[in-house]
């Protein structure tokens, strides 16, 4: 027991610092991926709701394709495939030898792309839940489209979308473990390394689980609070009303 504390602690023998850094990396890569997904999801939701037919079709295909292929393959495609393409381009311009690309960037983009497809569906559903009369009431005042999006559509849609987006955030955190294949030292990679070099896999994988659980629990709480705040004054609060 004492040994475990030393190993997980922040002393010279301990892996504490490495694990903390890895946990923060998981958080950072997840946040970037989620943000990419949100941007992509918003664009796709817009394309599906109001875009020209070509974009609507493209958004549909994007959704189907990403649902149909394994997430890990998308990461391989971005990281190894990306490296190959960047190298080829660099060689065109006279650079010799392979070019490394960042696992962090490739991983965030890949998971963002995966999450974007799901977030698009969440946002589209939330848009359709907006009472159309509230949009008409805005339109009739001469409100500009962008103002309407900012003031009337986004606040109403986000409120409905929060639970779904919260779920997406949780899956992004878990999927971020896949980015370890690029060599990025995030939580899974860090605990694997520690498990190997100490030959104590049970302890370190358990610690890894605890780190993920801590991140998902705390961020779940943040989402819960956001939902609660957003629901102030909404009909759902009037139980039986």
């Amino acid at each position, binding site marked *: 027991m004492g040994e475990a504390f030393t190993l997980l602690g922040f002393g010279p023998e301990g892996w504490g610092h490495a694990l903390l850094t890895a946990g923060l990396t998981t958080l950072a890569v997840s946040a970037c991926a989620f943000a990419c997904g949100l941007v992509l999801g918003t664009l796709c939701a817009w394309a599906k709701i109001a875009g020209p037919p070509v974009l609507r079709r493209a958004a549909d295909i994007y959704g189907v394709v990403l649902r149909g292929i394994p997430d890990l393959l998308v990461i391989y495609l971005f990281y190894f495939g990306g490296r190959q393409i960047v190298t080829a381009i660099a060689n065109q311009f006279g650079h010799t030898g392979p070019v490394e690309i960042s696992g962090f960037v490739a991983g965030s983009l890949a998971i963002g792309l995966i999450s974007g497809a799901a977030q698009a569906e969440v946002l589209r559903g939330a848009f359709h839940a907006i*009472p159309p*009369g*509230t949009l*008409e*009431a*805005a*339109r*009739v*005042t*001469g*409100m*500009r489209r962008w*103002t309407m999006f900012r*003031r*009337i559509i986004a*606040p*109403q849609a986000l*409120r409905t979308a929060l639970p779904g987006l919260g779920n997406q955030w949780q899956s992004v955190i878990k999927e971020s473990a896949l980015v370890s294949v690029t060599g990025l030292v995030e939580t899974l990679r860090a605990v694997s390394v520690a498990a190997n070099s100490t030959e104590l896999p049970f302890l370190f994988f358990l610690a890894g689980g605890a780190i993920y659980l801590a991140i998902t629990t705390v961020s779940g709480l943040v989402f819960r609070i956001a939902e609660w705040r957003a629901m*102030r*004054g*909404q*009909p759902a*609060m*009037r139980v039986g009303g």
Partner: protein
Amino acid sequence: MNPTTVRTPTTVRLANIHKSFGRQEVLRGIDLEARDGDVISIIGSSGSGKSTLLRCIPFLEIPDQGEVTVGDETIVLTGAGHRFSRAERQKIRRLRGQIGFVFQSFNLWPHMTALQNVMEVPLHVQGRPRAECREEAEAMLAKVGLADKRDAWPAHLSGGQQQRVAIARALASRPRALLFDEPTSALDPELVGEVLRVIRALAEEGRTMLIVTHEMAFAREVSSHAIYLHEGRIEEAGPPQQVFLDPVSERCRRFVRGQAGPVD
């Protein structure tokens, strides 16, 4: 209107408005003029095109043909599927800015309090100073008798209260004309009175209003003109005494008799 007095300026004018949905022609050449201070009630049976007519004024429905004027803005339509130029779209926005529209189903913005609903357009569309918007919004809420509900969420207000907030919201953008589409039809009977009282007070202030309504007694009392619509045409128009009590059109006569119901 007395022809010997100086004619007040036109606030809303429709000229030869046509509108079809698919193959169904819902408006078949509507001419209508509301001058400053007129209160025009629009009556007619269900499906006669009353809502469509009212919604054509701020281009919630786009007329196929005809001319819409609000204040100094005139838009001419030349046929179904008309594509608006950038300048025309701007014109439509300016035209919309000059009317206040009150819907049957209130359509308050549910994520804003009553006061925020009323302040929204002055602040974020018209870009007036916040302090001024707030002051005026509070005054408008007081006018509709809801000063104490300024911080209430729409979902926590009764239908009558929501509709009064919606009226305050329409007033807050300082419109030249107010358009009401059956403002009391979605209300429980006991809540109709409070909304009609507010509208009556606005009529007494000399506001220009177009009101689509089934409240015959109320319409007769507040309006300066009445219009009876039948199958997309104005079948009877004139002072309320004529339209409600002694119309020329036999169909209109039957309609107002049928609608009269118990005297209140």
